[in-house]
């Protein structure tokens, strides 16, 4: 789009959320089934904003959905009331999900962006360590 001339845009600097017509209200269509337009920020990434990243350990997760409701960036992927994982294209690394996680030890922890997920999962703190 960056190379397009002035005569190639829609008038009024209008943007469309979806590619083509949608036949029902998007509230009834999960994000994964939607046909987003190239102008929807859903197709963009803010992954490069992150200095730290959340790592999800499903072994301790109770699917309480606190992380889902309090995530500012629609980055907690929940399906059928279950926590599935994190959308790393949209996560800005704020760390709210970790703060609101009620399990002990936490099911989400922040690590440096470069950290290796497998390594961190392997050395996840135990309940006792958490309480120290």
């Amino acid at each position, binding site marked *: 789009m960056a190379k397009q001339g*002035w005569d190639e845009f829609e008038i*009024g*600097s209008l*943007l469309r*959320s979806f590619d083509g*017509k949608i036949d029902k209200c*998007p509230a009834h269509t999960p994000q994964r089934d939607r046909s987003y337009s190239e102008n929807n920020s859903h197709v963009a990434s803010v992954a490069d904003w992150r200095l730290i990243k959340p790592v999800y350990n499903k072994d301790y997760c109770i699917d309480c959905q606190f992380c889902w409701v309090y995530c500012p960036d629609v980055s907690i992927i929940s399906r059928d009331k279950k926590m599935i994982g994190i959308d790393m294209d949209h996560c800005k690394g704020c760390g709210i999900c970790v703060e609101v996680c009620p399990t002990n030890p936490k099911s989400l922890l922040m690590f440096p962006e470069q950290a290796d997920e497998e390594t961190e999962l392997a050395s996840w703190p135990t309940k006792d360590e958490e309480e120290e």
Partner: protein
Amino acid sequence: MAFDKMELKDIEVWDGNHAAAQAMRQAQIDVVAAYPITPSTPIVEGYAKFKADNYVEGEFVMVESEHAAMSGCVGAAAAGGRVATATSSQGLALMAEVLYQASGMRLPIVLNLVNRALAAPLNVNGDHSDMYMVRDSGWIQFDAFSPQEAYDLNLIAFRVSEDHDVRIPAIINQDGFITSHTAQGVHTLSDDVAYNFVGEYKPMNDMLDFENPVTHGVQTEEDWHFEHKARQHNDMMTIVPGKIEEVFADFEKLTGRKYNKVECYDMNDADVAVVCMGTSVETAREVATEMRAKGIKAGVVGIRVFRPFPFFEIAEAIKDIKAVAVLDRCAPGGAAGTLFNEISGSLYNTDLKIALSGYIYGLGGRDLTKAHLVDLFNELQANADAGKVLTQQQQFIGVRGPKLAYL
């Protein structure tokens, strides 16, 4: 509840405000969001009464300021339907921010602007300060010289503005009080004929189309803004003029009343001419005819379409004229008059050598009398004979005290 049609006589005695309100009623507008201000108030009151008497099916929203009036109009237009309002002077100044939003978002809205001076000092009478203030706002601007034209141009404006190739809002100017409050005979169209001419509103990019969600009013910075503003200007320069001509032609076919972007009167063989807007055009025409009896071949050019400015039509209209006076009804604020500048711009790169002079007149409703125009035509004849402007380039007409002239 179905709304009622109104039976009109072929010729009704209407002032400019009522003529505009009647045209708005006949256009079957979906939403009018408005706020009263002298001298356009009777348009808003008239429309309110039509609504109260079941002649209007659409929504009428009386808001709390002119800024809100235009904000409501923008929201309504983006939602997808026919929208109009009216204002004057300070009201226009307050809504000016939103005028730029409306044109930038390419939303068709019709605004009746009953021209009035801008304070300070406070003044409720007619001049063109408000019209000029929003000249760069990206709106189409028509100018009505009489109640008949206020009526006709309203119907025309919806057609032009709402066309999908255009989608640019339009202002219809008329002089405060002299046009807006002076009743004259107005040839009417029946409700059905008028509505059929305007046509059904055809939505585009409408927020109420839930199958196609749209985002209006984005932010664009240095990487995108220029392209969108370029498109706006391009469409004003290349699409709107042709569309206006097309709708003028259709209107003539329907009514026999012919409109032109530049209205020429006795210009074919004229030596001298006055270019002006508003009710002054009619006064100037009368004086021009009288001057011909005195041996001065005088003509008058009225600007019907102020934006997009009819550069080529103006140049064509005055190309054989020896001396031309451009009349600006607005305090120039340290420059030449706006119309003077536009016309100079139209001529500068031509081979034409016209003695061009500018006059500031009629501020705050001060009369432009026939005597003023007789003197002016005589001055033009002297310029024509000398082949140059013998006076200073900018003069004031009709102001008390020592003569004012500059440049």
